């Protein structure tokens, strides 16, 4: 049995504590967002890109610098199909379309073709970002030269060997010095969920344009819409790149 508590008859009147806790929490939350916003260093955002030769000694991997939220800074894995598996011995990257010499690039070719490091932030259209990733990859422009891109080519379509996902760039976007077929992240082979063995990385564009599990590259005269664009999705931020969106 619980003993009855002693109650002082003349209790002080109740105080409006609830609303103070509530409003205090909302204020703290808003303050936290603003302070966090300062810490994620907006001026660096979106254009923190550099490209350098692979033999550069200074190309070290950098730990997240963000003190408060850095511990939570990680990739979120979005996939529209079950994460596909591959075997290095049989994986092929087909380069075709409006080219003079269609190519079949093998897993070992990834390491023997000339590659570069691209250091960049990875930014998802849903808001999250991972700063200072060091990608190693083959520049798309190198691949276009090898394959002999034809004059009529204006766009590039990328297809995933998951059989569903596809994306497209303008040829200009794909010719950027930091648009690469990436096969290493932070000096390690791409993890499966990062699109192993190879994915597209172009830090000028949001993550959904950076196709994973790359299986095909095709040069075209007309834009072939990507997976999300086929679903009627357009990104107003990138404007002119999405001219042919419905």
């Amino acid at each position, binding site marked *: 049995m*619980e*003993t*009855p*508590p002693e*109650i*002082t008859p003349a*209790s*002080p*009147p*109740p*105080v*409006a*504590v*609830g*609303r103070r*806790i*509530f409003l205090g*929490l*909302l204020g703290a*939350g808003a303050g*936290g*967002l603003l302070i*966090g*916003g300062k810490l*994620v*260093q*907006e001026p660096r*955002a*979106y254009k923190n890109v550099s490209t350098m030769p692979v033999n550069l000694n200074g190309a070290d991997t950098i730990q997240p610098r963000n003190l408060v*939220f850095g511990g*939570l*800074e*990680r990739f*979120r*894995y*979005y*996939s*529209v*199909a*079950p*994460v596909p598996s591959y075997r290095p011995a049989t994986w092929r990257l087909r380069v075709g379309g409006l080219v003079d010499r269609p190519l079949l690039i093998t897993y070992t070719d990834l390491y023997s073709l000339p590659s570069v490091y691209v250091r960049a932030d990875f*930014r998802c*259209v*849903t*808001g*999250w*970002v991972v700063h200072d990733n060091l990608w190693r990859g083959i520049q798309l422009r190198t691949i276009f030269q090898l394959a002999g891109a034809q004059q009529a080519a204006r766009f590039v379509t990328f297809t995933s060997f998951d059989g569903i996902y596809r994306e497209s760039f303008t040829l200009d976007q794909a010719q950027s010095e930091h648009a690469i077929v990436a096969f290493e992240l932070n000096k390690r082979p791409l993890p499966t*969920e990062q699109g192993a063995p190879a994915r597209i990385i172009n830090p000028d564009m949001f993550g959904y344009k950076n196709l994973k599990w790359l299986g095909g590259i095709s040069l075209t005269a007309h834009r072939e819409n990507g997976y999300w664009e086929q679903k009627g999705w357009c*990104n*107003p*931020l990138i404007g002119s790149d999405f001219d042919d969106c419905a």
Partner: protein
Amino acid sequence: MHWAFSTPFLVLLITGVALGLPQTEILLTHRDLIRAVHLAAAVGLVALPAAVWLAGNRRGLHRDAREIDRWDRLDWQWLRRSPWPFRRSALPPQGRFNAGQKLNSILVTAAAVGFLVTGVFMWKAEAFPVWLGDVSTQAHDLLTIAVVPLVLGHIIMAAVNPRTNQALGSVFHGYVDAGWARAHHSRWMP
């Protein structure tokens, strides 16, 4: 009101954890479907309580809100003596809500506002500055981490803890045992 809020809240929590955990998000093949459920439940989290307020007993809800807002010495005493199971110290009498329930409702409502605000920044990220989407995503994660123990604690108190579990039935059928109410909630004067 309890269920109008807590049903969408629980759906959001479950779908949100499924969408957010690295262990589950790579397994999801119907991510867009779960995302749609998550967004629909977010609408419900605003719409259902609003509907209850519009159609329901507004005076009663107002009285409840007032009781949750007002705290006196005995509420603090109740929290200090901590209602953990199998402790012998007596708990001071409470009103309709005990101090733990009051605190829970305040915290969970504040969290819901935080989730809704950061959620809108994530949902419509392209309409806001990039830093806001970035920070909101991480704040949304932190809020989830904070809210899971709160919800679990609330459920354990209501369903398991012998010193408070009489409240569980009442939230389903609306009645409490009169003797229990006298013993624990003697300052409840409807």
